[in-house]
């Protein structure tokens, strides 16, 4: 039984359709990488999954239909979206940002314990708790954004270009942590990435998007091994 089942998803902005009937499934506890060139619809796919963009078709999470629900209702069902550009609340402190992540959870039980858990994943955040989030470096802000998403105790974690604007070293560290989170929390992850090499390194399966359609799907190893794919869609030689 798959955790996330997307069937014939059509989504876009106004009259401009970006996704033209897209279907994919992600198993529980899996990491799924979405690859493809600019404008392929990767970000729109994540937005449609979290409800920021309305779509037609069907998105089911653990058997529950998500299409047509509002973003806050979808968040309440355990979908945590780390948007492109991180969505940091700049003037708020790091701790306030994290607590906002637990926003949809009823009651305070476990919030403190979860904060501690976040610090074990991201020790860099701990000394900066009372600092304005806007004063963090890009890498720290991305860690904060992922930490904030974890505070929701998500079933499904959506990551949009976590490597955007970060140094290669920081990006590698970030992906290592995402992998650790996935292994320890058994959270299902859908990650959109330009850096195909890194994303394929942690994912079990991958889909390549082009102009709103899936042009290739397979296990991460297979996609990585396919030289033609690497050249035509991912823009580098393996």
């Amino acid at each position: 039984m798959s955790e996330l089942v997307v069937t014939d998803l059509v989504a876009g902005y106004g009259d401009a359709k970006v996704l033209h009937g897209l279907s994919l499934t992600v198993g529980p506890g899996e990491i799924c990488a979405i690859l493809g060139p600019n404008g392929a619809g990767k970000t729109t796919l994540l937005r449609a999954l979290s409800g920021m963009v309305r779509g037609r078709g069907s998105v089911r999470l653990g058997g529950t239909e998500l299409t047509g629900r509002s973003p806050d209702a979808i968040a309440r069902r355990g979908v945590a979206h780390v948007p492109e550009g991180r969505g940091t609340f700049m003037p708020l402190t790091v701790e306030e940002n994290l607590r906002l992540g637990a926003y949809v959870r009823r009651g305070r039980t476990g919030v403190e314990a979860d904060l501690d858990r976040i610090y074990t994943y991201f020790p860099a955040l701990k000394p900066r708790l009372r600092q304005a989030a806007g004063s963090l470096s890009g890498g720290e802000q991305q860690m904060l954004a992922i930490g904030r998403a974890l505070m929701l105790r998500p079933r499904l974690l959506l990551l949009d270009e976590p490597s955007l604007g970060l140094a290669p070293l920081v990006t590698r560290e970030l992906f290592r942590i995402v992998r650790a989170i996935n292994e320890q929390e058994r959270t299902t992850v859908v990650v959109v990435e330009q850096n195909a090499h890194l994303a394929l390194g942690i994912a079990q399966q991958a889909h390549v998007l082009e102009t709103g359609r899936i042009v290739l799907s397979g296990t991460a190893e297979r996609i990585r091994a396919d030289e033609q794919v690497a050249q035509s869609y991912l823009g580098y030689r393996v």
Partner: protein
Amino acid sequence: MSEAAEARASGSRWRVAANRRWIIMALLLALTCYAPFQLVPFRVFQFTMVLIYAVALLGLNLLVGHTGQISLGHGAYFAVGAYTAAILLHSWHVPYPATLPAAAVAAFALGLAFGVPAVRLRGLYLALVTLAIAIFLVPLLKRFESVTGGSMGLTLAKPVPPAWTGLAEDQWLYFLTLAVAVVAFLVTRSVLRSRVGRALHAIRDNEAAAEVMGVRLSFYKTLSFAWSAMLAGIAGCLYTWVIGYVSPDSFVVTLSITLLAGLVVGGLGSYWGPLLGGLFVMFVPSISQSVNDAAPGVVFGLLIIAVMYVAPTGLAGLAGRAAYSIKKTLRKE
């Protein structure tokens, strides 16, 4: 220093700061209670008006400073509160205390009614719609003459201080206003520190991110509008008590603009901004009148520009910076 020791030290520093804050608050409260016995009645009246403006600005601050929405029509909610109290007192002869919740409910309801469409608007469009509220209110008040007294307005008897207090009228009104203002400040403060406050800040700072974290935008924006209008309405009710007279010309569009200017000058999104803004709105026009009798508006306007130039974060931000640099100099010595 080890990590634990560091945490302890920063914790105790924080406690000292918190204690100091309470001492300052207590001193301030003592001063505000003592002042009316030392000042002439006109000054007491002026400070009462400062508190009234502060309550209205507290509401506006919740909406503009903390939720990141705009309102150019808060004078309308102020007027609705004032007129609700005045009509109840004038035509129904209800006791004074009962007009306060009535005014609050009326303004809350109106804020809710305008908050629902406002949820769909942003920035300039929202500004325009809220401005329209302020514009159509005055002709409306003049129109329903039988209830509102038309252009002549309504004249009312002021609340009489109970004999046991031994207070003069101006002092009694001052303390009534002070009590309402203190409660309003404390309640708003605790709301802002709660989960609700975090949700409002999230909406202000990044709507899309707030939404995907599960914050219901429409609910909180509407709530913020209604709550903000309610505080303006409460301020309006206090205004009626203190002035004893309402007329449409007291609530023209300029009032809304003045309130917004006062808030921005006082300090948008800060705790003390509304109070500083109240002082500014009350005293600066009369000061500028003494500077140049012919053009108080010009002086007032220039002063706003000057404050914004020197202190873009408002008077509250300026005070914070001053306190910080004093502390730094003290530590150096």
